[in-house]
C-alpha cells in the first residue's frame, strides 16, 4: 500500500466501525419482540 492508502486505512475503518456500530445498535434495540414477527403475506417475509 502507498503512504496515502496506509493513512486512509485507519480513518476509513474508524468511520466505518462507528457508523456500523451505531446502525447495528439501533437495529438491535428497535427489534420487535419475537412473538410480533409472524409474517402474513409474502412481501412481509424478511429473508
Amino acid at each position, binding site marked *: *500500500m*502507498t*503512504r496515502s*492508502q*496506509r*493513512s*486512509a*486505512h*485507519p480513518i*476509513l*475503518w*474508524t468511520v*466505518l*466501525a462507528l*457508523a*456500523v456500530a451505531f*446502525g*447495528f445498535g*439501533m*437495529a*438491535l434495540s*428497535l*427489534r*420487535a419482540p*419475537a412473538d410480533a*414477527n409472524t*409474517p402474513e*403475506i*409474502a*412481501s412481509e*417475509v*424478511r*429473508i
Partner: protein
Amino acid sequence: MSVAFRAVQWNRAKLIYDGILLAGVALYIGTYLVLAYWLDSPKDQPAAIDLRIRAFGSCAFLMLTIILSIGPLARLDRRFLPLLYNRRHFGVLTFFVALAHAWLVIEWFAVQDALPNLYDELTKISDYAKFIGFPFKMLGLVALLTLFLMAATSHDFWLVFLTPPVWKGLHMTLYVAYGLLVMHIALGIMQGDGNLLIPAMLVVGFAGVAVLHLLAGWRERVGDRGGASGRDGWLLVGPPSSIPDKGARIIAAPDGERIAVFRDGAQIGALSNLCAHQNGPIGEGRIIDGCVTCPWHGYQYRLADGCAPPPFTEKLVTYRVRVTGGVVEVDPRPRPPGTSAAIRCD
C-alpha cells in the same frame, strides 16, 4: 509483463488453495442444510428455498469476514502470508456464493408468483426514509454489485491497466460493502428472527475485522514516524550486520514513504518498499536465487538496480546507499526506477 490479457495461470499451489476453498464452502452449506432439515424440516417449497437463502447468505458473510481478516493478519503475523497469495480467488468465489444467495431470493418470490412484491419492496421510495422497514435488500444488492466490480477487475490485466495504487484504492471499497452487508443482515433477517446467533455473528465478525485493521494500521503508523537523519539528510540505518542477510530493514523517509534496505552478503541496496505488481511490502520478502522476492506473489527484482530479471520488465525506484563510519546510510531522494544504486561493503 505487458497490459495484454493473459488467462489465469493455475499452478499446483493455486489448485490446492482453490480445492480447499471449494471443499470448505460445500462443507459449510451441506452441514447447514443437513442440520436445518434435521432440526426442523421445511414444510413447503418456499421454506426449503428460504433455508438455502440463509445457508448461502451466512456463508458469503463468513467468507467476506475471512477475506477482510487476511490482510491485517498477514501484516501482524507472517505465518498468515500463504493465505494472502490467492486471496483474489477467495474473493471471486465469495461473489458467486453471494450471487447464488440473491438468485435464491428471486426464486423464493417467483415460486409464490410474488415477483411484483420484490419490485415494490425495492422501489417504494417512502420506505427509504424509515430505519426499521428500510428496504434492506437494496443494501445487499449494492454490496453484491461491489463484489461484482471487485471480481470483474480482479485479473492482473486490470491491475496493470488501472495501475496498482488506483486498483488498490478501488478494491478498498470492499470495506464499505462489508458495512452494507452487516446492515443488510441487521435490518433484514435479524429483525424477523429472534435467534441470538445472528447478532452474535455480526458482532464477532465485524468487530473482529475492524479491530484487526485498526491494530495493523496503528502498528504501521508507529513504524512510519521517520528514521533518524544523518549528514546531508541521509537516513541512518545502522551497521551492515543489523540488516539480516538475504533480508531487509524497512525505514521510513521523512515524507513517510517506505524504503527497503536489503543485504545480500556484502552487497547492500535500497529499493522502494512497494512491489510494482500490487504494491506489496517488498521489504518483508527475502532474497531468493539472487533476486529480491515479494512476499505476496513472488515478483522478483535485482538488488543492484531494482529491475525484474528478463523477460519481465517491471522496475522499482532505487535509493543511493553509503557506509559512513561503519553505519549504512540511505539517501531518501528516489532515483529513477531501474537505476543502479547498490554498493559492496567488503
